[in-house]
Structure formats: structure tokens, C-alpha cells
């Protein structure tokens, strides 16, 4: 099958017929998914349904058995590791449930390092402005281990946002947090995505978040895509 010519404005995320299994253990089967510019998508499914696996595929850490994944039109599911690194670096930021920050560096240095590694250098003032915006402006000089869970997750979001990604992915960003902090973090992500027109893909098993998202993808139901 011949691919249609590249669209003028390709979507930030496009999965085509993606199938993946760990050895002979199928996880994802013929998955199609598109996220438009500025769209907020919720990826929902119980534990073991393959949310993290899907995120690893989207980030190019795993390659699908079949199908293609495009980030802003560029295929991250193919090509060499260096090519996949480059696509990820250019477009994607990720927030994890618990793997948040480099422990040896202060919060501000974590942000600076993220910007450097993404080759999008920022001024110290921008870093502090962003931390202020996330209400952790006073914590820039602290080490990650000195922060509370909620503060650390906000710092991790700041670390992901400082590079102004096209696509912000969050894997269970709230499940290690109590209700109050979970709500703060979730609304923060949505608010920031809104403000900067970032496409947001949030994976969770927490159905409470459904109502706030444009689109909900349920990995356990067929057909998978449900519009809220």
C-alpha cells in the first residue's frame, strides 16, 4: 500500500495499525489512534492493559511488530536509534509516575539540563518563571529528595514543559499522589497544555479524570476510541 503524501500539517501523534507483543505475549493489537494539535487525550485501562507499553512505543523506546507510529509526520517506529532519538528530542516530553527527576541535581538544574539535552537552551529567568507558574517557585534550589510527592511531580511537569514540546505524554502522573495532589497535578497538566497549545496524552487507570479530556481511549473496549 502506497502512503498518502505527507499532510501539510501532520498531527502530532498518529498510530497506524500498531501491533506489539512481548515474545509470544500480545499486548497491543491493530491499534489506530490520532491526536490533533492541542487535543487532550486520556489513555485509560486497567493495570497490565498496555498503557506503559504504548507510551514506550510512542517514544521510540520499543518498536512495534507491525504498523507505524508518526510524530508530527515523522516515523518514530522506524529507522536507527539516532533517528528515533532525534524525533523524540524534537517533539516529545514525558512525565512518569515515579521516575521524575535526576536525584543529584537541584530542581532548577534538572530543568536546565533537560533544556540543554533537548537543545532548546533557556534562560534561568524562564526556569524560575515556569516554577512560579507551577507554584513551586521557592523550591528551585532544592534536591528532588527534599520535595513532597506532589511537589516532585509538579517539578517533573515543569521539567517536561521547559522544552515546550509539541506532544506532552504523562504515564500515571497522579497514581502515586493523594486525591488532593492528584487533582492539582491533573488540572495543572491540562491548564499548561491549554495555555501553550500542547497536545496532551495522559495514561491512567483512574476513571475520575475522564470528564476533563477531549478524547478518551480505552485500551480494553472495542472500538477503542470514544469521544467524550
Amino acid at each position, binding site marked *: 500500500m502506497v502512503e498518502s503524501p505527507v499532510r501539510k500539517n501532520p498531527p502530532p501523534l498518529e498510530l497506524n495499525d500498531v501491533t506489539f507483543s512481548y515474545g509470544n505475549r500480545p499486548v497491543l493489537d491493530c491499534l489506530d489512534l490520532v491526536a490533533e494539535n492541542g487535543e487532550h487525550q486520556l489513555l485509560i485501562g486497567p493495570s497490565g492493559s498496555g498503557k506503559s507499553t504504548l507510551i514506550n512505543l510512542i517514544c521510540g523506546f520499543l518498536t512495534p511488530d507491525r504498523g507505524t507510529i508518526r510524530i508530527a509526520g515523522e516515523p518514530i517506529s522506524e529507522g536507527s536509534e539516532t533517528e528515533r532519538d532525534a524525533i523524540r528530542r524534537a517533539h516529545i516530553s*514525558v512525565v512518569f509516575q515515579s521516575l521524575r527527576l535526576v536525584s543529584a541535581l537541584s530542581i532548577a538544574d534538572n530543568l536546565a539540563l*533537560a533544556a540543554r539535552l533537548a537543545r532548546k537552551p533557556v534562560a534561568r529567568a524562564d526556569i524560575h518563571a515556569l516554577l512560579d507558574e507551577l507554584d513551586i517557585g521557592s523550591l528551585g534550589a532544592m534536591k528532588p529528595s527534599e520535595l513532597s510527592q506532589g511537589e516532585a511531580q509538579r517539578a517533573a511537569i515543569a521539567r517536561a514543559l521547559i522544552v515546550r514540546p509539541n506532544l506532552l505524554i504523562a504515564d500515571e502522573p497522579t497514581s502515586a499522589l493523594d486525591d488532593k495532589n492528584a487533582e492539582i497535578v491533573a488540572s495543572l497538566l491540562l491548564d499548561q497544555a491549554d495555555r501553550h497549545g500542547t497536545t496532551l496524552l495522559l495514561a491512567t487507570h483512574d476513571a475520575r479524570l475522564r470528564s476533563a479530556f477531549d478524547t478518551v481511549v480505552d485500551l480494553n473496549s472495542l472500538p477503542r476510541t470514544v469521544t467524550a
Partner: protein
Amino acid sequence: MIRLVFAYLNERRLTTALNVLLLAIAVAMLVMLLQFARQSEARFLDGAEGIDLVVGAKGSPLQLVMSSVYHLDQPTGNIPQDALNDLRGNPMVASATPLALGDQFRGFRIVGSDYGLFSIYRAELAAGRRFDAPLEVVLGAGVARETGATLGQRFVGSHGLSAEEGGQGHEATPFTVTGILAPTGKPIDRLIVTSIESVWDVHGISHEDDARLSVEHEHSDHDEDLHGEHEPEITSILVSYRNPAAAVRLPPAVNRNTAMQAASPARESVRLLQLFEPAIEAVGFFAALLAATAALAIFIALWNAIRAREGDLALLRVMGASRAQIFMTVLLEGTVTALLAGGLGVVLAHGALSLATRSFASLSEAGIEAWRLGLDEAIIVIVALFLGAVAAAIPAFTVTRKKLAPTLSRNR
């Protein structure tokens, strides 16, 4: 990136400090060994320049050379002054310079000689003039620096060759400083030079059969002594040859036909250095072993660190770091550890040398200078860096081979 490397080193600073110390000690040992070997060798060769042969009383030839050329050991005994005239009359001899030892001032030897000593060591006057009248002296540069003595100053020598011997003072015959020599880097820097006659004056010309130079001080008894029955004596004679053939013919002639011995400084210093060789090799081997242990310690520390840091390193990749950059951070950690160790080792070595030269006068007398840096030290530091890099290379490589997906989806 560099900042991250330092942050990591700081995070596990105890391990870092221990590893740095371990490697630093190895580096320090090697540097000290090198300094010692190189400086003493250079000193020995420089110090003997212009002296082809030493003629003195029978005994150990090494002792004769050490005492008369380097002024480190006790003399072997005395020889009659006539020997000087005999040697000067010998056609194979270009120059013969007498030495009369026996006294010191604050640990610096007072040497009775003539102007020939200045030309042997190529010593120029920095101030004043040469000794002329009896009891006038010229100070070596080191003596002037350390005693603070100035032109015109008077001082009293005391018996014995080192300050510890603390012999009697010669209060009746004080010396006067008439000149100070410019530094030469040779043994004369640490000598107080005067005329042979001055030394005789101080002691009275001894009549006793003392093995050493005139140890008699009782000027009052002077006249009752059997003075005049014995020739005035000197300690030894420094000889330079007129032609190469003398090297073959003069020493056996002296050894066979006189009651004196002839010793070659070049031969004796080579023998002395050879004496040190097994010790130097043993210490070198131990230092190399220590360096290998340090490299192993760095390797183990990094190996553990990268395992504890799996999450961090995965996160760095997520943030956009390439495999090469991850490799470099770990490699740099090893190299920076080694660099710190190299720097510390060099400082440690020179610190120890400077302490040693300050506490043991004999070391500084032997011409060991504490703070002279050499190119070879740069080579030692580079080898240490290389060790650090090698120790880090395997953990660094392992990190880059690591699959990221499992680490990232772990919900710790």
C-alpha cells in the same frame, strides 16, 4: 553535563574521596620516587663535574667521594700536605685542589681549600671578594640564605662536621665573611670556603696521630707540643686530568705507590645509584600495584553507582541525551576522579618532599628540592587519567547497552 558529573561525584563523595585518596597515594609514591631518583642522579652527576679523581686516606672509596665531593659523609682520614705538591708536579694532572675538613658553622661545613675550588664548581661571587687574609671566608649561596649571614659578619666555627655533633667552639679564632657566592646548584652552595692556612690556624697545626684533621684546640699548649715534627695535613685532593690517558694510569699509580687511595667520583656515584636500584624498583612495583587497586576501586564504585542510577540515566535518555552522552558522563566520572587524584598526588608528593627536606637536613644537603615539577610527572598524571578512563569504560559501555523500556515502565 560536566555539572551533572560533579553532582554525581558529590552525591557519593565519601566513595569519591576514598578512591581519589587511594589513587593519589599511588601517584604520590611514583612522583616521589621519580623526583628522588631524578634529582639525586642529576645532583650526583652535576656535583662531580670537573672532578676526575679524589685522592685521600685509605678506606672506603665511596666514603671518600661522598665526603670530599658531595660533603655528605665523614672523611676517611688525613693525608700529608706534600701529596698536593707531588700531584701538582705530575704531568698527567691539570689541576689539584686541596680540601681540609673538620669544622662546621650551624651544620654547614667549613672547608679549607684554595681558589681552585671556585673554578671546579664554576662558582661566581655574588657579593664581596674572595678570602685573602687568614680567617676570611666566602659563603656558599645556600649558607648565606639559611644563616642570613652578611658581608663583614664574624662567626665562630665549631668542631665536627654536622650541627648535631655540637663540638667545641673555636672562640679564639672567629671567621669574617668577605664574600658570598651566587647559587650554582652544586655542593659548594652549602659550604663555607676559606684557605687551608685558616683551618690550620684555628686548630693549631696538630701533632697528634688523630686520624682526622687536627682536632687539637689547646692553643696555649701549642709551644710545648711536638709541633714541626709532623707535616701539616689535609683531608683530600680533588684532581682533574690533563688527558684521557691519566684515567688509566693515575689511579693505579696512587693506589700502588703511596699510602693514599684514588677514587673516581663517576664510578662511585654510579655504584651508589646502583645500590638504590632494587629499592627503587620495589617501591615502584608497590606503587603500580596500588594504582591498579585504585583503578579497581573506581571500577567497582562506578559499577555500583550506575546500578543505583539506572532510573536517572534512563531519564537522561528521555530528556534527549544520546547514548554517546550517557557514555561520556560515566567515563568523565572516572576520569575526573583520576584527575583529582593525579593533582592531589602531585601536591601530596611535593608536600611530603618539602616536609622531609625541612625535617631532615641531610636530604636538603643532598640537594633534594621539594617543588621542582617535571615533565615525567605530567606523564604519571596522564597514566592515572588513562587508568580512570579504563576503569570507567566498562560501566559506561554497559549503561549504553541497557534497554530503556523496562526501566521506564517500572512504577517504583
